[in-house]
Every structure is written in structure tokens, then in C-alpha cells.
């Protein structure tokens, strides 16, 4: 490098962040080879398994003459349309955090680095963070699409280029949306408009998703009509001004050998990427700086104007008055005052962390949407085999969701005490009771939620009452085990240096917790199905009883052992 030529800031930032990332990866591998091996195995396993499944599914679909190619093409258009939407949302969230809540951004802005350069660097970083996981998830599908149609080798070169151009657009649009959000978030008019838009969208989507009645007679005689009606709901993905339309058209036309069509859509995509890229990299920095200053200058209580019913009182009168949560805790909780204080603190911390409750709401929303849709599904189940299979798969889906919740929210509980662990460690409460309180509380909440969900989903499937009780009880036991496993392993593998729960979960302990939870669910689900009294041919009462003994014993052991180890570890933890 010639010392006389100043190095562009962009290259300096890229260099330092590349070094940081590479060392982080090396230290993660060196820290736990088992964790790295498991992660590598999962990545490879997912890629191969997903490719095999997608390939089989696409081959099956393409075997329908006339209909197959139409369905597959629509799937490609839908895939990229939803990918665009998800990337947009993901980019808005990540850009907001990265542009306005990131310490590196503030550090760089205190140096002689132009706002434009910082903004450009941050949207590049956010774009990668927001996109890589989605691209990893869809890659097997696109590869399977190529092999299903025997695409030539250059398909696998052209497609990544199309996708790379495509992901730039949601990254830029997401960053602009994040800037707009940062500027307007605390304005009452914006908040009212946002609430109205969400309500309108919910109404629109729920009316749009209404199921259509398809009779057996229609399926027998008017298949094309039924398919046409089905596809009409997905026509939005063919809107020609959507970037997903350009990438889908380019890819599908390349497979069909219509190279000129691909070339055309490639140029459309390239021109838009260059145009928006130019605007973002040369003109948006000043808006970013204004928005950053607005965020930094914001007083607390952006939603204060919504709390119009609250009477303003002098600080002395309000500071120590009991809040509703304290009063409810006194009524509901049977533990001692210190345990109650711990639980109330955990609930408050959870409710005041938008990331935590936001993710819980998304998971819960998905589950509720799934359960509501089950009632449409159950009408089609006529054979006992399918009813049995669906009911056990339903149990599995709810249990896997529970395992995701316990790993994501319960496992990091001890670590989240972080540098504040001395407060609990020095208090008469003690670590053992702390652990038990966290375990009992999370188990109680999980049991209430999952038992209700499983009960509701079984009712939607029109399963007899005795089986509803069976499944509800089963998931109740699983809630005990999964919570004990999460609390126990969270105490065995704490990470007191990290404040971000997502990062705590992504460590070795979190991965182990998720893997063990999934293995436990798959194992116990297979055991329960194999020893069921009525499902899949039915078994004798002795086998049924034995199945329950094994299930209860296994569940108890898998929960109790890590919990006991965790308690012992916490008793000797050096704060």
C-alpha cells in the first residue's frame, strides 16, 4: 500500500470487521469443538435433508401432467415474494438496531468518518445479517428446482447472482424504513396511523385467508377450476413491479432455456439495484444523521401520550406505591416475599424488553394461527390412520414449539442475571431457591399455555375427550421436563458476560439444550405412539401402562438430573 494514498474509510471498516468476525469464529471453534461440530453437522444435515425432501416433493408435483409445472412455477414466485417480505421486515428491524442502537455506530460518528460512509457500512452489515439465514433456508429448494428440471451447470451460477442483486433491494428499503421509523416513532399521528394500518392488515389478511369450500364432486369433475381458484389467491406474487417477480421470472426462464427473457429480467433487477444502491450510498447519510440525532434526543416515554388516564402525581407519591403486578403477585403467588420479588422482577424485565415479548408473541401467534386452521383440516380426515397420525404430529408440533420457547426464554434466565448475580448470590434467598423459583414459575406458565393449546388443537381435530386428556397430560409432563432441562443446563453453562439472550442461547449450553429437548420429544413421541391404546392398531393395557411408566420415568430423569446438577453448580458458583 502506498502510504501517500489515503485508504478509503470503507476499506478500513471492512478490514477491521473482517478481522473481528474471523477471530470470533476461530475463538468459538476453539472454545468448544463439540459445539462447532454440532453446528457444522446441523448445517450440512439441514442442507442435505432439505434438498432431498424438496427434490422428492418437486418430482412428485411435476409428475402431474400439465398441472405440475404450473404449480411449481407458482411456488417459485411465492417463495421469492414471501422472501422479499421477510427480508424487508428483517432488514427494518436489524437496520434500526444497527444504525441507532449500536455502540460501534456512535464510536464511528465521533471520528472523522462521514455519516454517509457509516450509513453505507451499516446497511451492508445489516443486509448480510438479515439475509444469510433466509438464503441458507431457501438454497436447497432452489437447488432442488434446478435438478428437477435438469438445469445446466450455469443455472447454479446465474441464480446466486440474481439472488445477490435481489437482496440488495430489501436491504436498502429496510434501512430507509428504519430511518423513517426512527424519525417518527414518538409522534402521536404516526403511532395512531401504525395501529390503524395493523388493524386494516389483520382484517384484510383474515378475510383473504378464508377457506373455500371444495366438494368431493368438484374434486372429481372440475379439478382445473379448483386449482384455478386456489392459484387466484397467490396471484399477488405475479405483480410485475415486485422485485421478487423479476428474480423468479429470471430463474424460471433460465431453466426453460429462454435466455433472452432471463437477460431482460436480469437487467431490470440490475438497473433497480444500481439506482437504489446509488441513492443509498450517496444521498441517504444526511437523513440517517438526522434520525440518529432524533433517537438520541428522545426523552423517555414515547408512548406516554397513550396513558392519558394516568393522573400525574408528584414523584414522592408514586415512586413506592404498589403497582398492579405487585398486587396480583400477592394474590396469586404462594411463595415467600423474596421469591415473589424475584418472579415479579423477571416478569417486569421480560415485559419491558420488546425483543423478548415480541418474539414470544410471534411464536404464540404462529401457534394460534396453526390451531385455528386445524378446524378446516379436520373435515378432510376420514381414515383412522390419518386422524391418529395428525393427532400425534399435533402433539409433536406443540411440544417442539414449547422446546423452542424454553430454550429461547428459560435457558438464558440465570445468565441474564449477568453481572447482577451478586445481588441474588448475596441475598438470603440463595441460589438454590432462586433456581427452583425460576423453574416452578416457568413450568407453571408453560403448562398453562401449552396444555391449553394442545387441548384446543385436539378439540379442533374433533378427537374424543379421553384422548384430549391423554395428549394434554402428556404435554404437561413434557413441560415439566423441558423447563427443568432448560433451567438446569442454563445453570450448568451460564454466560454472565453476555446481556443479549439470543447470543446466550447460541452458545454450547443453549445448543445442547435444544438438541436434547428435540431428541427427548422425538423419543417420547415415538414411545407414546407405539404404546398407544387406540392409535396405529392399538396395544394392550399392559403395554400402554408400561409406555406411561417409561415416559414418566424418562421425563423425570431427564428433567431432574440437569436440574440437580445446575443447583449444585450454582451453589459453588464464584461471583
Amino acid at each position: 500500500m502506498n502510504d501517500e494514498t489515503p485508504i478509503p474509510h470503507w476499506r478500513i471498516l471492512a478490514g477491521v470487521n473482517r478481522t473481528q468476525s474471523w477471530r470470533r469464529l476461530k475463538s468459538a471453534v476453539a472454545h468448544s469443538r463439540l459445539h462447532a461440530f454440532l453446528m457444522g453437522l446441523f448445517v450440512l444435515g439441514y442442507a442435505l435433508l432439505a434438498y432431498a425432501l424438496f427434490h422428492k416433493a418437486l418430482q412428485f408435483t411435476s409428475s402431474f401432467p400439465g398441472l405440475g409445472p404450473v404449480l411449481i412455477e407458482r411456488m417459485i414466485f411465492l417463495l421469492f415474494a414471501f422472501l422479499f417480505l421477510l427480508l424487508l421486515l428483517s432488514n427494518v428491524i436489524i437496520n434500526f438496531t444497527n444504525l441507532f442502537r449500536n455502540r460501534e455506530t456512535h464510536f464511528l460518528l465521533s471520528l472523522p468518518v462521514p455519516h454517509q460512509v457509516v450509513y453505507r457500512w451499516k446497511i451492508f452489515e445489516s443486509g448480510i445479517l438479515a439475509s444469510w439465514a433466509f438464503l441458507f433456508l431457501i438454497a436447497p429448494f432452489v437447488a432442488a428446482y434446478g435438478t428437477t428440471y435438469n438445469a445446466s451447470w450455469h443455472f447454479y451460477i446465474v441464480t446466486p447472482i440474481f439472488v445477490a442483486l435481489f437482496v440488495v433491494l430489501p436491504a436498502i428499503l429496510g434501512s430507509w424504513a428504519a430511518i423513517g421509523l426512527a424519525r417518527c416513532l414518538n409522534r402521536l399521528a404516526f403511532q395512531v396511523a401504525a395501529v390503524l394500518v395493523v388493524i386494516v392488515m389483520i382484517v384484510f389478511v383474515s378475510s383473504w385467508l378464508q377457506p373455500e369450500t371444495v366438494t368431493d364432486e368438484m374434486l372429481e369433475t372440475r379439478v382445473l377450476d379448483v386449482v384455478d381458484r386456489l392459484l387466484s389467491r397467490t396471484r399477488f406474487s405475479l405483480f410485475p413491479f415486485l422485485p421478487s417477480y423479476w428474480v423468479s421470472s429470471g430463474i424460471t426462464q433460465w431453466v426453460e432455456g429462454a435466455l433472452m427473457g432471463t437477460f431482460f429480467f436480469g437487467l431490470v433487477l440490475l438497473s433497480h439495484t444500481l439506482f437504489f444502491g446509488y441513492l443509498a450510498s450517496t444521498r441517504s447519510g444526511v437523513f440517517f444523521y438526522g434520525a440518529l440525532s432524533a433517537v438520541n434526543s428522545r426523552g423517555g416515554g414515547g408512548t406516554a401520550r397513550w396513558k392519558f388516564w394516568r393522573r400525574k402525581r408528584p414523584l414522592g407519591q408514586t415512586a413506592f406505591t404498589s403497582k398492579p403486578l405487585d398486587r396480583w403477585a400477592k394474590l396469586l403467588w404462594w411463595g415467600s416475599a423474596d421469591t415473589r420479588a424475584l418472579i415479579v422482577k423477571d416478569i417486569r424485565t421480560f415485559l419491558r424488553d420488546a425483543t423478548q415479548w415480541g418474539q414470544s408473541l410471534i411464536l404464540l401467534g404462529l401457534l394460534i394461527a396453526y390451531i385455528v386452521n386445524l378446524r378446516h383440516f379436520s373435515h378432510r380426515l376420514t381414515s383412522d390412520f390419518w386422524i391418529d397420525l395428525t393427532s400425534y404430529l399435533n402433539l409433536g408440533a406443540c411440544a417442539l414449539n414449547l422446546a423452542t420457547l424454553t430454550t429461547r426464554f428459560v435457558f438464558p434466565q440465570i445468565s441474564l442475571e449477568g453481572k447482577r448475580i451478586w445481588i441474588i448470590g448475596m441475598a438470603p434467598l440463595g441460589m438454590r431457591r432462586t433456581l427452583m423459583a425460576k423453574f416452578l414459575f416457568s413450568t407453571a406458565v408453560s403448562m398453562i399455555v401449552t396444555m391449553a393449546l394442545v387441548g384446543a388443537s385436539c378439540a379442533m381435530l374433533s378427537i374424543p375427550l379421553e384422548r384430549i386428556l391423554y395428549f394434554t397430560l402428556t404435554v404437561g409432563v413434557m413441560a415439566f421436563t423441558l423447563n427443568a432441562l432448560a433451567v438446569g443446563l442454563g445453570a450448568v453453562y451460564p454466560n454472565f458476560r453476555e446481556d443479549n439472550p439470543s447470543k446466550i442461547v447460541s452458545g454450547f449450553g443453549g445448543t445442547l439444550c435444544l438438541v436434547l429437548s428435540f431428541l427427548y420429544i422425538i423419543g417420547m413421541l415415538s414411545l407414546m405412539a407405539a404404546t398407544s391404546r387406540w392409535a396405529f392398531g392399538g396395544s394392550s393395557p399392559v403395554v400402554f401402562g408400561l409406555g406411561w411408566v417409561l415416559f414418566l420415568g424418562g421425563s423425570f430423569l431427564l428433567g431432574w438430573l440437569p436440574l440437580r446438577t445446575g443447583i449444585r453448580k450454582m451453589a459453588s458458583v464464584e461471583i
Partner: protein
Amino acid sequence: MIEIEQLTKQFGDLRAVDDLSLAVPGGEFFVILGPNAAGKTTTIKVMAGLMKPTTGSVRICGFDIGTSPIEARRRMAYVPDFPFLYDKLTPTEFFRFTGKLFGMKDPAMEAEAEHLANRFNLGDFLAKPIESLSHGTKQRVAIVSALMHSPEVVVFDEPMVGLDPHHSRVLKDILREQAEAGVTVFVSTHQLSVAEEMADRIGIMHQGRLVAVGSHEELQSANRDRTLESIFLSLTDNDA
């Protein structure tokens, strides 16, 4: 030099800085004192360009931080109360990084970094990852990286936090030398002894306003020869 004119900074209903005007010429060691939430850090953040003033302006060496931020920052060294460092880099790599962002040539950067690192006894830590360093050592790394490019204005927010007495002394000496060499030094601290010992002028902020400003002697004579502590407490007594 630093020129602050009628600076006001509003956070929602809270006026954190209220009509603050102050000029700190080159070669002056200025210490700003004030109770918690007096508006010191907000003032410093506006000076560093991390937020725009609600009204008023800040000029660093004649460059308005709002309209010519790059020129202003190029002449400034800023260390916040909790400095950001890249935890996987070594101090040497971090110095090289910040040096390049300031457009320093390698030989000048290396010479300056080595000189300052030696004064702060960082020799044994230069090749270790920053994440493995203690809080005080990280603070020393941040200070070296900020001073490397020979700034004309130094703005430090609570720089003594985390430093042991030996390195506090080193920092005080370096800042004194900088001031004597014509650099404007602006330091926020809660340690009244630092103000008494080091400052050419002392400013006391309270509820966003600059309630007193002058040399130690001027403050004493204007307040019946009392100690700086009693002057400070009397001017900010509703927080005591």
C-alpha cells in the same frame, strides 16, 4: 478552541442543557463539574456531534460541528465515559485502525502510538486481545487511540474512571502537557481534586445551566474564599 453559543438541548419535556454559552481558548485546561444529570455528558455529546443541538451551536477550531462535522472531528480527540473498543482486536491493531481513520501515515502513527503506549505502560498488553484486558487497561487503550493523531481539542468525559493512581497521574501530566502545547483540553469529572489541581478554569453545571465559571481563585473570591467542595455544594445544594 471550543465555542459554544446559546446551546440548548431538549429531551422530550426535559431541558438537559439550557442556553449554555462558553468559549474555551487554545491552551486552556477547562474542567466541567456538576452533579449527576446536570447536563455535562449531553453537552459533550453535542460537542462530539453525536446529537444535534435543539438550538444554538458548537464550533471546534472554528468549524461548526453541525455543518462541518468532519473538519471539526478531525481536530478533536473524544473519549466517552464508556468507550467502545473492538474486543477481538489487539491494542496495536486498534491504534492502526483509528490512525487510518484519521488519515495518519504509518510511521507517524506507529511512533505516536508507541510513545503514548509507553507512557501508559501498555507495552505488555499491545499484542493481547482487547477483550482480555481489565477495565482500566481498556480505558488507557481508548485514551492512547484518541490522542495519537495530535488533536487540537481534547474532550474527555470522566477519563479517570477505572484508572489507578499511577495512570491517573500519567493522564493528568499528558493533558497538562497538551494544554501547555496549545491544545484545548475540556474534561468532565466528579473529582473536585482534579479540577483544583489541573484546571485553568472550572465550570459548574447544574440543571443544564452553567451556574459558575472561572479560575479556582476567581471562584473562591466570588464565594468568600470557601473550598471548591463547599462552593460546589452550595451552588448545587438541592441535589445534595
